[in-house]
């Protein structure tokens, strides 16, 4: 039987019957496997086992899973609950390590599914609206889809051509989810391998989500000069109706903007948002740089805070990272809530089929607290008109104000100093102490809690005196909130091929000391300002700092002594010393994409179906380290794990120890710090960096030198190594104090030693470590355990070596 192809054809004898075949399941995969489509690595369209032996187990041999369970028990199936403490096995035979590997894996596939579903929603919506043939115009690049290309071998050029990659990610997610079932996979290490695979798919899902919106919705296209956007609660004009959007998916918001533009309302209604929807609404139609008018209120931790401020006149939610108590909280202040995405419907009635005016009346009257509207035309009109109508009503009802001073005093005086709120607060803020000072009229301790408070309301729920603690903190912080005004560069999308070409050599040699990627959510263990301090430290040291999502926002919330934010002080290009806001969470795919493109474009490696070789190149040659300082969500775990499979380490905040699984190497085990030289297959010793692929730090001061150290790579040339050592050792001295214990392990010769302190450090090498120094020639004679060879080709993949 011949195979079916796409196209139209008629069947003989059956007049007037024409059959059209648009897509054939599996056809793209078949085509990709055909041999005549150019260079192709060994793993296009991988399955659960494809990367396991060739790459994942090699990574996991050095970067060992570190399990920190959240619970002694397992209650997955009806055999349980089982007590797994002390690594016991449950009734089904799985042990504590295996079960926690499963728990971590479950987080990763959940995050992967979130982004894949987001991508699917946008892809279908945009194809339906604009057609399949919209070209992937993403800026001046040939490599448009590095994650898709590495994974599937394909290089789609239009919206329609993305479909096979989308289908593939969905199919593999089903396979992955199946392994969680009781009685299936039980080996911890195999859950890790599967999690890594899922991480790679996550970056495919994110890549799809972002490139389709960039192409179809005219977002900035690899634009280093994308406009500056106003940011912070303090930028919202209280006199205007305020339409507040929360979530991650921009599809519906564009209709609000279109409605506002068609009806000349852009200066009459405030449209602003929280989380990634906010970032992406500032990107809409910005490719041609029209003056931006929408605002970014801030990160997820501000959701309840903005509601408690009373300012929003309507709230529209879409998907992901949206609190579960938006409706009851908004209801207290007469704020109607519209759910605009089928993933979150909050039990609200659906008003898709009702007349627009009737729905506005119904919501205005308060007869229903909110409704579902999935029809975007209606959503655009209703949300904007409703905000205008609600504004005077809510103003008159006095619900747009925070509490009065008298009310505040009454609340504070009620506190019985019972300590229940301290026990409940996930950030462990000392609320009782702040209350004690507030009773004496000193509100500064309460004000100090505002920045670290994630607005979660756990404290309020345990307070027997029913004090609205979050409102108390917010009231005490009115002055600093009014000054919460920052700037953020609109998300610029991918890093262009040209930018990779000009920075590739510097990155591989180490003369640009590294890429620092500041991403993720606001569940900070110390303070939001930590990400600002870290970013500033690395920018001043000429690292390339890239950001996405809530991390990008919080970097822009603080100002220096001249009143300037980081985005105003540093250029937006992918250059040494540049601060690059890539975009929203889904834009994280462009961060792995940039590292992949260094391997593909600069390193000349085949990208198609070639994950292991690309990852191996990045691990050994591209100094990069992620920081997800407030990672809270499942998506953050999948984003990080996707970075990990590509050889990019990530430091997370202390809360992220609750993900249950880190990947940390034994820096004392020399057998782990060897690679092959691809020129002859001989083993070569490398220094112990990066020491981890996924770990946590306690404070931003600790994280800073950790990240600098994690940018050291075997491929650094002498100048690069000395630059990287300079930064790491200076940062260690500044924040930890003194010389790091193991700095000497990174020295291959005198030229590696930081220039400014070379003589003094050589003295230490001689006296403390017994190295032989020729002081006349200022040369190291013997001592280093690793050698420098400028043309060595470090690799963890034996199969890439030419045999000697």
């Amino acid at each position, binding site marked *: 039987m011949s195979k079916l192809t796409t196209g139209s054809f008629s069947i003989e004898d059956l007049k007037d019957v024409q059959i059209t075949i648009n897509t054939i399941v599996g056809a793209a995969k078949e085509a990709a496997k055909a041999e005549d489509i150019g260079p192709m690595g060994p793993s296009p369209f991988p399955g659960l086992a494809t990367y396991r032996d060739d790459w994942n187990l090699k990574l996991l041999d050095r970067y*060992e899973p*570190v*399990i*920190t*369970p*959240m*619970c*002694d*028990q397992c209650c997955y199936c009806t055999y349980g609950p089982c*007590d*797994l*403490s*002390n*690594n016991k096995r449950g009734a089904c035979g799985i042990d*504590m*390590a295996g079960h926690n590997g499963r728990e971590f894996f479950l987080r990763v596939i959940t995050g992967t599914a979130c982004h894949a579903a987001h991508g699917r929603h946008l892809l279908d919506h945009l194809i339906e609206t604009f057609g399949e043939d919209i070209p992937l115009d993403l800026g001046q690049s040939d490599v448009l889809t590095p994650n898709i290309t590495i994974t599937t071998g394909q290089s789609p050029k239009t919206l329609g051509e993305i479909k096979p990659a989308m289908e593939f990610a969905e199919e593999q997610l089903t396979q992955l989810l199946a392994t969680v079932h009781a009685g299936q996979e039980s080996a911890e290490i195999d859950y890790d391998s599967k999690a890594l695979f899922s991480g790679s798919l996550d970056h495919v899902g994110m890549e799809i989500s972002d490139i389709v919106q960039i192409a179809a919705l005219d977002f900035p296209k690899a634009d280093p000069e994308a406009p500056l956007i106003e940011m912070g609660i303090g930028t919202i004009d209280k006199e205007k109706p305020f339409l507040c959007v929360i979530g991650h998916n921009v599809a519906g918001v564009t209709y609000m903007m279109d409605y506002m533009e068609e009806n000349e309302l852009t200066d009459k209604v405030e449209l602003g948002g929280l989380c990634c929807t906010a970032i992406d609404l500032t990107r809409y139609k910005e490719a041609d740089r029209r003056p931006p008018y929408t605002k970014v209120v801030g990160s997820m931790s501000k959701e309840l805070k903005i509601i408690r401020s009373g300012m929003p006149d309507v709230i529209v939610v879409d998907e992901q990272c949206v609190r579960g108590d938006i409706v009851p909280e908004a209801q207290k202040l007469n704020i109607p809530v519209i759910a605009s995405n089928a993933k979150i419907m909050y039990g609200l009635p659906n008003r898709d089929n009702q007349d627009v005016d009737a729905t506005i009346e119904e919501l205005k009257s308060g007869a229903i607290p909110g409704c579902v509207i999935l029809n975007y035309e209606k959503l655009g009109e209703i949300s904007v008109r409703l905000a205008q109508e609600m504004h005077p009503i809510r103003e008159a009802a006095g619900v747009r104000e925070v509490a009065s001073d008298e009310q505040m005093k009454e609340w504070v005086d009620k506190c019985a100093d019972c*300590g229940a709120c301290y*026990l*409940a607060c*996930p950030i*462990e803020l000392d609320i009782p*102490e702040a209350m004690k000072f507030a009773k004496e009229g000193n509100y500064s301790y309460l004000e100090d809690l505002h920045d670290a408070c994630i607005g979660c309301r756990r404290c309020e729920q345990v307070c027997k005196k029913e004090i609205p603690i979050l409102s108390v903190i917010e009231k005490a912080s009115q002055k600093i909130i009014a000054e919460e005004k920052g700037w953020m560069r609109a998300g610029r999308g991918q890093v262009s091929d040209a930018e990779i070409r000009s920075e590739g050599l510097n990155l591989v040699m180490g003369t640009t000391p590294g890429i620092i990627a500041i991403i993720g959510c606001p569940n900070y*263990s110390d303070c939001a300002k930590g990400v600002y301090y870290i970013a500033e430290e690395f920018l001043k040291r000429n690292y390339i700092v890239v950001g996405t999502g809530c991390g990008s926002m919080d970097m822009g919330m603080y100002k220096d002594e001249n009143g300037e934010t980081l985005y105003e002080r540093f250029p937006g290009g992918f250059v040494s010393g540049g601060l690059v806001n890539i975009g929203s969470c889904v834009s994280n795919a462009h961060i792995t994409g940039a590292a992949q493109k260094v391997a593909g474009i600069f390193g000349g490696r085949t990208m198609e179906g070639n994950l292991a070789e690309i990852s191996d190149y990045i691990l050994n040659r591209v100094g990069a380290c992620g920081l997800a300082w407030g990672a809270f969500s499942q998506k953050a775990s999948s984003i990080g794990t996707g970075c990990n499979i590509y050889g990019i380490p990530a430091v997370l905040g*202390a*809360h992220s*120890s*609750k993900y249950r699984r*880190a990947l*940390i190497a*034994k820096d*004392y*085990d020399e057998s782990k710090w060897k690679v092959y030289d691809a020129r002859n297959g001989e083993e070569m010793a490398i220094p112990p960096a990066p*020491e*981890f692929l996924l*770990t*946590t*730090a*306690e*404070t931003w*001061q*600790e994280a800073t030198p*950790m990240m600098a150290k994690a940018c050291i790579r075997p491929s650094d040339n002498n100048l690069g190594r000395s630059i990287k050592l300079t930064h790491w050792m200076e940062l260690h001295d500044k*924040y*930890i*104090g*003194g010389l*790091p*214990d193991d700095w000497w392990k990174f020295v291959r010769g005198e030229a590696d030693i930081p220039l400014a302190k070379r003589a003094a450090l050589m003295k230490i090498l001689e006296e403390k470590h017994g190295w032989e120094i020729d002081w006349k020639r200022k040369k190291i004679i013997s001592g280093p355990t690793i050698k420098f060879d400028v043309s060595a080709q470090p690799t963890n993949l034996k199969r890439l070596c030419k045999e000697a």
Partner: protein
Amino acid sequence: MVDTTKNTKLFTSYGVTTSKAINPDMAAKMISKAKRPLLVVGSGVLKPELLDRAVKIAQKANLPIAATGHSHVGFLDKDVDAKYINVHQLGFYLTDPNWPGLDGKGNYDMVIVLEFKKYYINQVLSGTRNFSNLKAISIGRDYIQNATMSFGNISREDHYVALDELIDNL
């Protein structure tokens, strides 16, 4: 005398086992009995009242210090043996019998932990509790469920008194 065993309230539990609440004299006794103890401090120790007490504990019981987070800066001018290590990394190494320790002399049989956010140290100790025989004594102001023994929840003031009693008993 402060009773540090009274309040062992938890917001949520890790499950079936929980640490034994102890008083300062008992903590001192346990520390004195350990063969290779290690004092592990978090960045919270940089508060002057705590830093002084941590130094006294280390000196009196002759304990090496794993200075985690950025706490190491506090010990630079103190006469103690303090080394920086990341606490998540430390938690992992403590489960490896082959770890040479901070001084090259081998792994430890007990850690004494002080001044961490409780969610963080609980998480680190859930690793050592399930995957090693390490004993962990928490002498912070919060009840730490995943330690072997711990002070209960106490006020800041009582905590200082408890630490002083511990020092007296060493």
